[in-house]
């Protein structure tokens, strides 16, 4: 059972919700797909951590073989190759690793080397398997890391798995939720929160993911995100209050369900609601097609 937690807007509490749900489940997997700014490991402080570098293929041009035909330069749609001073230069950081340049080269002057873009880490924390990626600063895309995480996460199937997504509703989020059975959207009570909730809601709806919303940082008074859910008939899975104690626990990098009985109950109940929903959905809908599994 794979549950993706996403939000559109940053800072609404994706990591709070996914970390605490995984901790409440006790035997579970937590995957941190926010490879640009990963935070899950700061909470879980995993032990027995194993690291693995993630690389992408980058072209290497053999100057002696190259006949200067420029077909590679013309082919590259990402402008990662240029013909300067009688030879081909490679701009490694904008290369998408498509391999097209090597294919078009008529004299086989292009081979590939591996370039490290970050790493994936796997550890354990109180029964929770903690998997996460971290992109090297200066890299443009975390996509290769997310793909690696997705492949690795299917190495131990059958587990209850929580996927902590990057912010936004772009390609990285798309890749993170692709094989999910259920999407939990986390929203905060502002017009910003409601506006970004709408974007992820459209994404989730377009791909037909079963879904529900957790309202976070709830204050007394108006809640534009709650209103959005009511207007669109979206299930509200639970509400987390704006609470200074929870804020303090979280800002110190601690896991609320492991520190507070009240929050253990809150997230325990939320977990049961979500599991019930997922079971219901998997009975109604046959197995979704997997990309990695």
């Amino acid at each position, binding site marked *: 059972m794979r549950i993706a937690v996403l939000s559109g*807007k940053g800072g609404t509490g994706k990591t709070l919700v996914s970390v605490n749900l995984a901790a409440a489940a006790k035997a579970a997997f937590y995957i941190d797909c926010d490879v640009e700014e990963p935070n899950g490991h700061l909470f879980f402080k995993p032990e027995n951590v194993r690291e693995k570098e993630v690389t992408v293929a980058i072209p290497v041009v053999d100057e002696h073989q190259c006949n200067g035909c420029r077909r590679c330069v013309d082919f590259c749609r990402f402008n990662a190759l240029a013909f300067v001073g009688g030879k081909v230069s490679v701009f490694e950081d904008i290369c998408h690793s498509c391999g097209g340049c090597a294919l078009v080269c008529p004299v086989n002057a292009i081979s590939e080397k591996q370039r490290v873009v970050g790493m994936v880490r796997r550890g354990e924390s109180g029964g929770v398997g903690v998997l996460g990626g971290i992109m090297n600063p200066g890299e443009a895309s975390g996509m290769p890391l997310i793909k690696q995480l997705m492949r690795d996460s299917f190495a131990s199937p059958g587990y209850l798995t929580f996927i902590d997504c990057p912010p*936004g509703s772009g390609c990285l989020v*798309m890749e993170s939720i692709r094989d999910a059975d259920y999407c939990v959207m986390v929203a905060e009570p502002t017009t910003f929160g409601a506006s970004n909730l709408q974007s992820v809601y459209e994404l989730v709806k377009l791909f037909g993911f079963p879904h529900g919303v957790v309202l976070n940082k709830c204050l007394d008074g108006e809640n534009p995100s709650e209103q959005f859910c009511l207007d669109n008939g979206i299930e509200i899975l639970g509400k987390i209050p704006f609470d200074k104690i929870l804020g303090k626990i979280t800002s110190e990098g601690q896991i609320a369900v492991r520190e507070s009985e009240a929050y253990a109950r809150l997230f325990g109940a939320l977990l049961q609601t979500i599991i019930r929903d997922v079971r219901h959905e998997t009975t109604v809908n046959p197995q979704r097609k997997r990309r990695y599994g």
Partner: protein
Amino acid sequence: MKQLLILSGKGGTGKTTVAAAFIRLSNAKAYADCDVDAPNLHLLMNRSGKAERSDYFGMPKAAVDAEKCVACGLCMQSCRFEAIEAGDVYRIDRFACEGCGVCALVCPAQAITMEPAKSGDLMLFRGDTVFSTAQLQMGSGNSGKLVSEVKKRLFSAAPGAPLAVLDGSPGIGCPVIASVSGTDMVLIVAEPSVSGISDMERILKTVRIFGTKAAVCVNKYDTNPAMTERIESFCIQNGLPFTGKIPFDPEAVTAVNRSLTIADIDCAAGRAVKAVYAKTMAILFEESGAAV
């Protein structure tokens, strides 16, 4: 023109809240929302009048002509993005396709063409002040290219503006890199938490690669004063200017929900952001000695 970019690494620390207040306080003649994935600045700027809209085309997408496809599978074997699904006729997953054109190159039946694909909307508000913003289509890539386009349109529509305020996006990837490129200064809005500090350090590493001037302020500082102190000492140790701290203020939430900036109302956060603004502007304009 001096360009000030607001970033944070971590999401939800208050980039847009601070950027909108700065736009009000400076009366900036040029501003843009570079968070094309989840734009919100327009919600506080209340621009009346019609925006000039245009479609944004990112990379093209492959399309298979079902009549010509011989189902040989060469395209699928050659695609590095797992964007092609097998079948009687092969199909392209438009969300996974990065537009490289390798499939079209290898297809022996010339069944694949690269088609232009819209991947977002650009909006430009002209007038006394110019506002450039965009919305990336959901599930799309190429957000860095779209950010560059947002900035290009801002600068060409307001060439004489002395100051441009740019609201950035979370993270450290392509849209952030495209935002930082060419700006004079980055102000980091940090949050006093272990996550906030970790993310601040990573965005600063990224900004340093560009050699852009950076300063730090803390939002919601009183939610964890000890962490705020850690951020201040981090700045001192690393020679980074610290431009002040803004308290958590429920009035700020109310202001946002009424489409107001915190500088528009009399509140604790609004008073604090004025001090942050003054210090930031002093750093931004220090070399030229100019004042806003």
